[in-house]
């Protein structure tokens, strides 16, 4: 196995709050890993640090052997990482298709001159982008909603659309931030299937943040658990479930939802 993402000795402060404490973990290529922890444990902050939204205070983040700690967001994305957001960040007024096309175009090029004249590669490339985006929408079950404004889609569909948009970036590592938030149990089951499918079909490495422990336990063979900004446990679901620190974090803070 080759490591694809290495996080080592990462710290982050917000004013006086130590939001991420000496974070260390490694993701192997092809892993489907879960990042769990109670509310406010610092999970999303870890995603933000990986994707260059915040600068690191200390430590390094390495992607495919390259140090990406000081790269800007768009550079990180360009290296082959994509993510979704906890509180959806779709382009609300654009159609579902246009949302995906906006991401998809990163891998289909034509020049500025071709753009202002609609000559040359414009036509073929735009057709390619459209077809590829439709394929992805179809993949997440939204093909019949392609022309609908993203903001008017039902909540569960918006989450799927975000995944399609992230996939359009053709990433090697996909970071999913609470993809099941706000979904009903039935939708969650469908989502789990979808995540498992795209993991194998697109040969992705996936790191998924989940708030509900049971869900992660079901789909992720590898789980990292955080509390108060620090990693408290790592391993397969059984190890995590029986880890005393994890139990304390969950039962001490809040009762996990059934």
């Amino acid at each position, binding site marked *: 196995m080759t490591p694809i993402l290495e996080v080592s000795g990462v710290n982050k402060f917000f004013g006086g709050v130590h939001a991420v404490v000496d974070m260390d973990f490694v993701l192997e290529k092809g892993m489907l890993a879960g990042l769990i922890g109670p509310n406010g444990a610092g999970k999303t902050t870890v995603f933000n640090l990986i*994707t260059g*939204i915040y600068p690191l205070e200390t430590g390094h983040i390495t992607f495919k052997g390259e140090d990406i700690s000081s790269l*800007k*967001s*768009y550079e990180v*994305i*360009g290296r082959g990482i994509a*993510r979704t*957001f906890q509180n959806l*960040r*779709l*382009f*609300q*007024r*654009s159609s579902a298709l*246009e949302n995906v*096309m*906006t*991401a998809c*175009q*990163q891998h*289909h090029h*034509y020049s*500025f001159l*071709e*753009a*202002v*004249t*609609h000559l040359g590669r*414009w036509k073929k*490339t*735009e057709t390619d*982008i459209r077809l590829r985006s439709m394929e992805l929408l179809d993949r997440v079950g939204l093909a*019949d909603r392609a022309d609908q404004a993203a903001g008017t889609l039902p909540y569960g569909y918006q989450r799927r659309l975000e995944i399609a*948009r992230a996939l359009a*970036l053709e990433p090697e590592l996909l970071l999913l931030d609470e993809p099941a938030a706000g979904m009903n149990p039935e939708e969650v089951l469908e989502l789990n299937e979808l995540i498992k499918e795209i993991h194998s079909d697109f040969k992705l490495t996936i790191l998924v943040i989940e708030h509900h422990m049971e869900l992660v336990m079901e789909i992720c063979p590898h789980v990292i658990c955080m509390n108060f900004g620090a990693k408290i446990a790592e391993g397969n679901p059984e190890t995590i479930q029986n880890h005393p620190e994890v139990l304390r974090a969950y039962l001490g803070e809040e009762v996990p939802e059934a």
Partner: protein
Amino acid sequence: MFGGYTEGIIILLCINSIAAMGVSLLTGFTGIFTLGHAGYMALGAYVSSLLIMKAGMPWLAGIFLGGTGAMLVAWLVGIPTLKLMGDYYAIASIGLGEAIRLILENWQSVTRGARGVPGIPPYTTLPVALAFFLVMAFAMFCLINSRYGRAFKACRDDYLAASLLGFNTAKLRVLSLAISGFYCGVAGALLAGFLSFIQPIMFDMIKSTELTSVVVFGGLGSMSGTLIGTGIITLVTELFRPISQYRMLIYGAVIVIIMIFRPEGIMGQKELGKTFFRDLTRRLKPADKRHGGGVKR
């Protein structure tokens, strides 16, 4: 073909539309609110007329260099200032626009200062204005219907999401400003050739406000709306010329009323085109809508 008066209005329409398209790209499509774009018009006007009159350059080259000059300044100014967001950039853009005007006013030896530049050759004839308008409108519509259009809109709708879809948002914002600077510069150069006389005061903050409100009036994020808006405002301004006292009062009141009753402008984000007419016919026949837009589960 036309009388002199009608011809003048058509030329003015072309010039105003070119400038408005530039502002529309920046404000409507990239989400950067500007209140200083008259400055870029001024640059275009001065660069082209001075090059034509003092350096004896052919007028076509003058217009292009006027546009390019404005574009270069926009680009240079944009790199540091477009880090500012929202109202901070809006206020800074007033400063930038006014600074350009003040420099032109104070650089007496070259620009003759506040007295203005008279006797510019009248190179902006009707065919010239129309040709420039058609070519630049075509390029603008192509641009917004391309990868660049989607990229600008992504920056407008969600700056952070855009950068996490791999867009270099800072660079895109500067690019948008540079293009809009070019459009306004060319419009300024054409205006100089139309009026044969330019003066810094023509390009003050009121002119900038006018450019931006035309774009808002047409609908932020709709290029055809911008053209319709420019058409209406230019014609209405001409219509009200006999009661010019009340012209600006009505103009201000109209802006307020639009913001209250139809803030998305005439066109919203829609463009005139196949889909627009399809939506329109659909809306006129409510029964169809129920069929077409039905929710499938």
